[in-house]
């Protein structure tokens, strides 16, 4: 525990809490700044614009109270894990809807992020070792191109080609409706079968940028003095790579891994939409379309929370694997 001091942890924790507070306050203020009365909207949807119904909704959701009181209730509720009640799925609490959606998002986001980093580390390292070769040039060129392909286009093409046309994979959803929940083996297979295309589409697109990053990390490490020294000592190339270069080149991409895990939760939104995958992305989109404000806010709060949490973890782990960090 050389690198970590109590002061460092406290500083990071404070910063994380502050970030979370900023995000949550925005989350609270946005719908109120934008105008538009959800109660009227719901009334026009469900009760032919009845003013009585709208008033009832306002009282029920506390929309008739002062803004500060609403803010206090909002923060207080959050602390107790209370995210309010969904307008459209009344009276199901937002928390329950999110708890049901979150595992699916985590499943595809975790697997695809890890896979893409693994492949990027491998291919990026090989490309860096063979700098200037045909392989290297192809990897870099193709990565540059793929980096600018909209990620939902890849998902659409995969659904069309492998899903609809060849019928190798299901076109959507997380598992077959009415699947036998008791049979664990079959269930896992069913879920993996459905997750394959979403994961593949996320891997393909995120791979490119990470590959370029890993390659340039390795190249940078190779230009450092201690590598030159190791070469001068006559160490074998494979030993230099595994013992000196690889570890140092991986360090920056470790932070990248944690950061992108957080961002990916929000980034998979279009993917989930295309595959009708019942995760947090599909939930927030449906909530946006049906003006279900508590659900939109709940989803954003959870996404923000997961990003801040992962960042905080990365901050804590980083000095352990790279003692230089806490010196700054």
């Amino acid at each position, binding site marked *: 525990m050389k690198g970590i001091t109590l002061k460092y942890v406290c500083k990071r924790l404070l910063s994380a809490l502050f970030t979370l507070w900023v995000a949550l306050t*925005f*989350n609270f203020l946005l719908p109120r700044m934008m105008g538009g009365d959800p109660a009227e909207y719901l009334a026009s949807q469900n009760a032919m614009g009845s003013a009585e119904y709208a008033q009832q909704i306002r009282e029920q959701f506390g929309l008739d109270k002062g803004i500060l009181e609403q803010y206090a209730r909002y923060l207080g509720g959050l602390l107790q894990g209370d995210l309010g009640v969904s307008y459209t799925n009344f009276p199901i609490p937002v928390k329950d809807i999110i708890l049901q959606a979150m595992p699916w998002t985590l499943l595809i986001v975790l697997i695809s992020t890890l896979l893409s980093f693994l492949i990027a580390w491998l291919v990026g390292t090989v490309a860096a070792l063979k700098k200037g070769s045909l392989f290297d040039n192809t990897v870099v060129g193709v990565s540059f191109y793929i980096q600018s392909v909209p990620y939902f*286009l890849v998902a*659409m093409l995969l659904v*069309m080609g492998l899903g609809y046309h060849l019928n190798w994979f299901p076109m959507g959803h997380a598992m077959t409706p009415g699947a036998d929940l008791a049979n664990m083996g079959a269930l896992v297979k069913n879920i993996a079968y459905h997750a394959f295309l979403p994961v593949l589409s996320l891997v393909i697109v995120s791979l490119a940028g990470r590959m370029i990053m890993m390659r340039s990390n390795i190249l940078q490490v190779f230009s450092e003095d201690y590598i030159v020294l190791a070469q001068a000592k006559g160490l074998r190339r494979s030993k230099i790579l595994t013992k000196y270069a690889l570890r140092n080149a991986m360090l920056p991409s470790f932070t990248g891994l944690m950061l992108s895990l957080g961002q990916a*939760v*929000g980034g998979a939104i*279009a993917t989930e939409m295309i595959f009708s995958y019942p995760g947090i992305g599909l939930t927030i*989109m449906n909530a946006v379309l049906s003006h279900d404000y508590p659900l*939109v806010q709940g989803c954003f709060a959870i996404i923000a929370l997961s990003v801040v949490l992962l960042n905080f973890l990365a901050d804590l782990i980083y000095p352990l694997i790279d003692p230089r960090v806490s010196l700054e």
Partner: protein
Amino acid sequence: MDKKKQKKEKSDSYLVLEKYFLKNTRAKVGVGILVFFALVAIFAPVIAPYGPKDISFMPWEKPSLAHPLGVNSYGQDIFSQVVYGTQVTMVVGVLAGLLTSFIGVFVGLLAGYKGGRTGEILMRIVDVFLVVPTLAFMIVLAAFLPSMGIWNLVIIIGGLNWLWMARSIRSQTLSEARREYVDAAKVQGMGTLEIMFKEILPNIIPVVTANMVMVITSAMLTEATLSFLGLGDPTLISWGQMLSVAFDNNAILYNAWWWMLPPGLSIATLGFSFMLIGNSFLDIYANDRGGAVKL
């Protein structure tokens, strides 16, 4: 004497041009693609055989001589839509990218050169907002806005993207601020803003350009994503909007690759050209300064 000096200066700027462009194949290819799309955008009414919203053909027609990219489910010519879509996608991308660059350069220069408490506070703010998940935030924002015109798109995308750029410009400014020419300017009695914009900025132009083309690419992709999610302006025809309409109208079930590939690959190709320019500039600049420059 004067003449000689002038000649030397001329050759200096020519040398820069030569180094960054004439001898730089990647940048030349990138600029070539860029100019191509810009010309398409400018001359769209001349190039496109039909209006982008004309509904006058058989729906779902495959590519043919009359319709090089086929017809969509409404009976609109897809080639004409792609041509007109260039306008919206480029305008949103470039304007949002410029907005981002403006904020990013200003904050980065200020935080890097002034340092001290101002710089510290600015970077703290940047770090706090860097963690907020941008796309999810944009979706929430777009959801609560009453309507999403082209200006709202530009402001939302441009205004939320500058954080990384500010960081990059700041770290570059920090290392520039230690150079002799900055000291010389200080001795001459130049003001802070003057040094920032007249002395340091011209020296980090390659980094600024590299950053700028990256943020333009990401702005284009963000516009496409927002449009795809149904949060763009439905009255505009952009490449992202086309993909959104294609998805909503089950282009997948009609195997209508001719409706999805052209707008998608157009985005990718345009983004690719920006990437080529930015990365090659960065490499040359890094070589000059003897070391890697990170964005």
